[in-house]
């Protein structure tokens, strides 16, 4: 029996995303993956999918219609709701976080490209025809697994991981020496806000300019999701899942892996404060069950 989920309406860009396609940076392909990996994992778990399975990453309202069977749907890791065959569900635009994740049992069975199912817009690759979804798109579904009701502790941990008031933890470097102490003091001592001009390539931050007189290497250097570039105007940009794999701007610090989702979840205008931690603290944070279930 074949089943689909049809997009019957949407209010802002929605793409198919999954756990990403690591291991292809040497082709110039960024790692991709969910903007807020914890929310994707929680939604998939609630409907019985593999945690990194493909789901909807929605910036606005999303209307879905079940076709071919009854579907279980989880929004942002909430307990699964049943959408009977032929019925329509309206998922409102995100309010708590910048994006929301809508997982359907069986997962979105879009073709695998270079080991992943996520949409990479710059290369028109992956997801559904390499583009944001449109009304009328009918996405095939895989075979459903066994849903798992999230415990209160699960949801509590998720809320803590994405706490909108928590500091964003960074490791300073590798180019800190090219900035000087004053720049580091501004980075760690200021409150920035998430700029509306942010996308999966990078989150731009508004706030006091971070001083530096460095125009960058001129030649390209390795980049990494979470790396913090400072533009010539002094605005920090935190590289996102679809970042260019190489770049010339010096890097003052990099967000720790455990906090990728915490920053991704912040809505435009939300405050951002950075806190420097050690490599050991970064690893301990990553071992937390929200990240390594």
């Amino acid at each position, binding site marked *: 029996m074949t089943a689909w989920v049809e997009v019957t309406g949407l209010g802002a860009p929605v793409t198919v995303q999954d756990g990403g396609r690591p*291991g*292809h940076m040497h*082709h110039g392909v960024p790692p991709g993956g969910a903007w807020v990996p914890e929310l994707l994992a929680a939604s998939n778990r609630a409907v019985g999918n593999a945690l990194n399975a493909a789901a909807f990453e929605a910036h606005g309202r999303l209307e879905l219609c079940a076709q071919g069977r009854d579907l279980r749907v989880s929004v942002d890791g909430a307990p699964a709701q049943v959408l009977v065959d032929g019925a329509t569900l309206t998922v409102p635009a995100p309010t708590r976080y910048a994006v929301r994740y809508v997982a359907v049992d069986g997962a979105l069975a879009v073709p695998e490209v270079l080991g992943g199912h996520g949409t990479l817009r*710059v290369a028109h690759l992956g997801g559904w025809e390499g583009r944001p979804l449109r009304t009328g798109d009918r996405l095939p579904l895989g075979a459903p697994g066994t849903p798992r009701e999230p415990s209160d502790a699960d949801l509590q941990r998720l809320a803590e991981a994405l706490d909108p008031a928590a500091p964003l933890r960074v490791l300073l470097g590798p180019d800190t020496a090219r900035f000087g102490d004053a720049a580091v003091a501004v980075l760690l001592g200021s409150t920035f806000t998430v700029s509306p001009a942010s996308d999966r390539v990078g989150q731009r931050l508004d706030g006091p300019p971070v001083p530096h007189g460095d125009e960058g290497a001129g030649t*390209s250097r*390795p980049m990494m999701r*979470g790396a913090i570039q400072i533009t010539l105007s002094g605005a920090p940009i935190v590289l996102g899942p679809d970042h260019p794999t*190489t*770049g010339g701007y010096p890097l003052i610090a990099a967000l720790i892996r455990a906090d990728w989702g915490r920053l991704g979840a912040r809505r435009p205008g939300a405050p951002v404060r950075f806190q420097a931690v050690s490599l050991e603290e970064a690893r301990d944070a990553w071992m937390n069950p929200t990240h390594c279930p």
Partner: protein
Amino acid sequence: MTRCLLNIDLGELPGEDEQLYALAHLANIACGGHAGDVDSMRRALELCERHGTLAGAHPSYADREGFGRKALEVSPEVLRAQVAEQCGQLAALARERGVPVRHAKPHGALYHAANASPALARAVVDGVVEALGTKVTLVGPGTGALREAARAAGLGYAREGFADRGTLPDGSLIPRGQPGAVLTDVARARENTVRLATGGTVDTLCVHGDTPGAVALAREVRAMLDALERPPEPLGDSALRLVLPEGVDRRLAREALCALPGVKDAVITEAHACVYFDPVTPPEDAALVLTRLRVTPVSTLERPLIRIRVRYDGEDLPKVAAHAGLSVDEVVRRHTAREYTVRCVGFLPGFAYLGDVDPSIACPRLATPRTRVPALAVGIAGERTGVYPFASPGGWNLVGTALDFTAFDPARGAVMQLGDRVRFEREDG
């Protein structure tokens, strides 16, 4: 950490491996005392020059039969004259070639005897100064009479450790002839190297050219020293950025890094390599893997040649021509005249940085990047050229459009890969 240099005793044996000269920072050249003659010294000096190795003298008791290994009863005055004569002979030959001789290290039994006797140490130093002057560095044990004598004479002094010699619990060397005196196991020598080079008590490490497997051992010690000089820089908690050693094959470097346990991906850029991993399983020895490549001779397979037809219709072509002071046709001729190599892949899927562009048509990138460069635009930035695989923002000078070309294949990835050869061909109309 100050730099720790590798010194190797050379010019001692027939059939010596030339690679040892490439691996040594300092060559201690036998100058007739325990081994060596005019021919061997000339060869050693020539090899030092070829490999950029610092040449030094390796004087000894005059004992060719015993290879300078046993202590002889020699008066300080005679010893001074012997050392001066040996060093002087090397210095004379070095002057012929224009190779400076800036260090000296006593050999074998003399090394130990002089370090225990202030009178003999002074004789060695005086002999060295007589032949080589005072602008030399004496290499010797960390403490003892040689160091005192060198200091008193105003010479530089390099404290030496032995990468290939076993040590007793008190730190002294296990005497030759006893078990464990000479380390032939590369792993043990590597541990020894790290301990000595980072301990702050030695300035230079020695590998003996006559130890079995000397070349392999010297290679590992040199790779380790080079790796210690360039520690990886954390790029967050799940990547390490490394300086790419000069002369390393970029493709092999990537393959070697990817083979390390825990590495999920590796990227080569102009001057760096970067490895990516899970925060809890960082790879060890990433820097060592790269420096090992630097000291290991390799034969690389020739990579395929990719031909790209280009219509030279880029909107920056007149500007590039004006910058070069050439006609547009001449810029095109020079752009198509060369075979390029893929130096890195990055920025966008399938974007290959090709180099080097003929310096006469190199052109700095735009001060303000375009918000949209069309797909398949061919650009020049500095000494790099490349093809935009997709429409994207970009700051390169646009000189043309690639025809019937795909830079990125969703099934296979980048079409142009590290080390591939690329030529552009002009297509009119």
